[in-house]
């Protein structure tokens, strides 16, 4: 027998997920490299230190 269970979304999820309206005029930015200086700096830094080795808060 198959049981269907209705899972209520957590209240916190509802509060934290913002409503986002779609806007086609923003498509023009999608494939552009915005803030290139910042992105270059981020890439340079990531090349050196990469992702965190220590894990999470205790």
């Amino acid at each position: 027998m198959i049981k269907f269970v209705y899972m209520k979304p957590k209240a916190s999820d509802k509060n934290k997920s913002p409503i986002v309206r779609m806007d086609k005029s923003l498509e023009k930015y999608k494939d552009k490299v915005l803030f290139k200086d910042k992105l270059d700096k981020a890439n340079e830094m990531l090349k050196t230190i990469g992702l965190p080795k220590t894990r999470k808060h205790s």
Partner: protein
Amino acid sequence: MQLERYELKAEQSLKVFEFTSEGPRGRISKIVPFGETNLKGLFNLAFGDKDPTTGEIDDAVVSNNNDSDKVLAAVAATVYSFTKKYPGVWVYATGSTKARTRLYSMGLTKYLIEILEDFDLYGQRLGDWEPFEKGVEYEAFLAQRKK
């Protein structure tokens, strides 16, 4: 985190967001792109003002629109939206100046308990990442949504 914030708009892939700051200096359109870095699954979060005539984006401009809390809340909301659409990604952010990085750090500190419910958060210091702690000066931040 239930903060007053601006309404968000985005293109279809939810990698570029826009909202409008409102204050004494008028209505200022802000663009928030999540840029792909060379590290797979890691995106650079930046934001800046859109020039209403040219459409060019400037992240060095100081808007002084007396709404920095509301602006940061809107930027935080883009991170929630982006990481919901792309679970598992890392989001990297730093300010364009030391003062701005400190401002972001203060914003993260203010809501740290709520943020840590949903994200693993790291600060960059002395050439390495460490779990974000209050009162420490960091050069950049890195967040990953918890599963």
